């Protein structure tokens, strides 16, 4: 479970995040929705501990991302935006590297890597070097390696960017599988339809603030718009500029 309590983050004069709070429970899919530059990535980067919030706190299964960052990272599988692979290593080696870094026992690594390769259906290209992989193949391998230590919380930053229909579909299946396994899945997107189709909870962010945090139906009701896209636009307008 992920809990965010009023985090702020500025880069120089730019106030990227201004008091974001939400909760992403286990066994549910939570979507972080917002236009480009709304503060989605910054929020997620605070959660997977590569950035420190200026103010506010965030917890991963109760572990504070600032004071217990190592413990928090142990409970997270993160796919940063535009995550890259090591081109001279095969997909399997890329995944196994992360498995070893996460402290999985050397004897168990092979089984674990095989399991994750099966789960993500990447066996066909698992033993090829990742140089020259398509965007879809790269994303799958990057997700695979972030799941290799079997984390309870999964954070995906715009995972469907640059994916074709088939790849998007299998990504959706994977996210649903993770939900069924009782995991906490938090992902960001700027595509309303994608979020609506998958998420139990939608947190719309604009200008570094939470505009609305509800289910898809709840959002329709509260904005008074039947069409989700209109609802999205309305919700964003509800947040005034800084």
């Amino acid at each position: 479970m992920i809990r965010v309590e009023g985090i702020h983050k500025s880069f120089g004069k730019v106030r990227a995040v201004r008091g974001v709070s939400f909760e992403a429970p286990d066994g549910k899919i939570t979507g972080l929705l917002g236009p480009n530059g709304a503060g989605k990535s910054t929020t997620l980067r605070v959660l997977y501990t590569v950035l420190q919030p200026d103010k506010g706190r965030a917890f991963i299964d109760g572990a504070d991302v600032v004071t217990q960052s190592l413990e928090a990272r142990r409970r997270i599988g993160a796919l940063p935006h535009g995550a890259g692979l090591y081109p001279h290593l095969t997909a399997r080696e890329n995944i196994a590297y992360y498995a070893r870094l996460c402290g999985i026992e050397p004897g168990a690594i092979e089984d674990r890597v095989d399991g994750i390769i099966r789960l993500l259906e990447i066996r066909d290209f698992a033993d090829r070097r990742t140089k020259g992989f398509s965007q879809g193949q790269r994303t799958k391998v990057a997700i695979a390696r972030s799941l290799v230590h079997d984390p309870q919380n999964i954070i995906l930053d715009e995972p469907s960017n640059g994916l074709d229909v088939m790849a998007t579909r299998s990504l959706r299946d994977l996210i649903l599988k993770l939900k069924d396994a009782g995991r906490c899945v938090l992902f960001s997107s700027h595509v309303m339809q994608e979020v609506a189709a998958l998420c139990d909870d939608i947190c719309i962010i604009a200008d570094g603030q939470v505009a609305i945090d509800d289910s898809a139906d709840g959002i329709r009701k509260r904005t008074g718009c039947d069409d989700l896209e209109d609802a999205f636009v309305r919700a964003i307008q509800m947040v005034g500029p800084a």
Partner: protein
Amino acid sequence: MMRTLLTVFRKEVLDNVRDRRTLVSALIMGPLFGPLLFAFMINLSIERSLEDAERVIDLPVIGQQHAPNLVRYLESRNIDAVEGPADRGAALAAVSTGAHDVVVVIPPEFAGQFADGIPARIEVIADQSNSQADRQARRVRGALHAYSGELASIRLSARGLSPLALRPLNIDDVDVSTPSGRSAILLGMMSYFLIFALLMGGMYLAIDTTAGERERGSLEPLLALPVTRNQLLLGKIAATCVFMALSLGLALGSFYVALKFMPLDELGMTPNFGPPTVAAAFLVLAPFILLGAAVMTLVASFTKSYREAQTWLSGVLLAPTLPILIVSILTLRPRLEFMFVPSLSQHLLLVDMVKNEPLEPLHVAISAGSTLLLGGLLTWVCARLYRREGLLG
């Protein structure tokens, strides 16, 4: 801690062994560049020095008919007189345009002055700013002086005086430099080539640690793993060190082979560079590996991109030459305080080794200690920088 470090280290080695660019710079460029340049320069200087003494040169001489004996004497010294420019004016023009290197002019009054026993005038026209021409002019002048000396002796004998009267002093040069010592002048550059090879070996790994990982987008997911950044950084620096050590070893090996096949004894040099010296040289340079890895990682961590890092690190490759150059120009002898300066201390110790002079244990200790200390300090700074948020760019 150790396991993570080892994991990072193993992955970096595997990754870079598969990268042709790293391999070429670590295993070929660095280690072979120095020895090849060396072999080329030494062969060139051997050829020059052998050639200059013996080669027959054609010397345009104006007015040969006025001094047939002199012309014959020059021939015996491998200087053949040939037809030159028509007159003195044409000769001056020919030399200044470079058509001829040296022209000798024997004026018509030469024979008369010679017969009268007064100093007979002879002109050597050369451009002294041209080193190739000057070398020839020196040979011609030397031959003329020798001829003049011989004639003087004959004239003195003819008057019943001992030619020894012309030699009030008998000057003997005693050269205390040993053949190993003479090698040191040329081989002094070797230490720089070795440091160059060492740095080249780890350059791409050092870039990869920060700028490379960032540009590829693999840094952020790596930092989101449940490992500390210190472990990641130290693993990467360790891998950089191993590649640098490998390059250094190969460079020493190729120097050993190159020196074995070079006709150094023809230049009067016998460098002390057998297997024990090679091994000792590796140990003397080894502390520089940590320093090199830390400096390169540090510099690369300030850059925004791979390309920018490459540019800056090329500068780092040249930095160790500076102290070596200054000391070489001032021809300073090893002193205690020099041992605190990395690259300089290794250079001086290496020169002593090649000269086959005993090393001062205190010097070796200070050199290794101060270089390692600085390397450790910079590694610590790298680790601090690896923890900042700006690392992600």
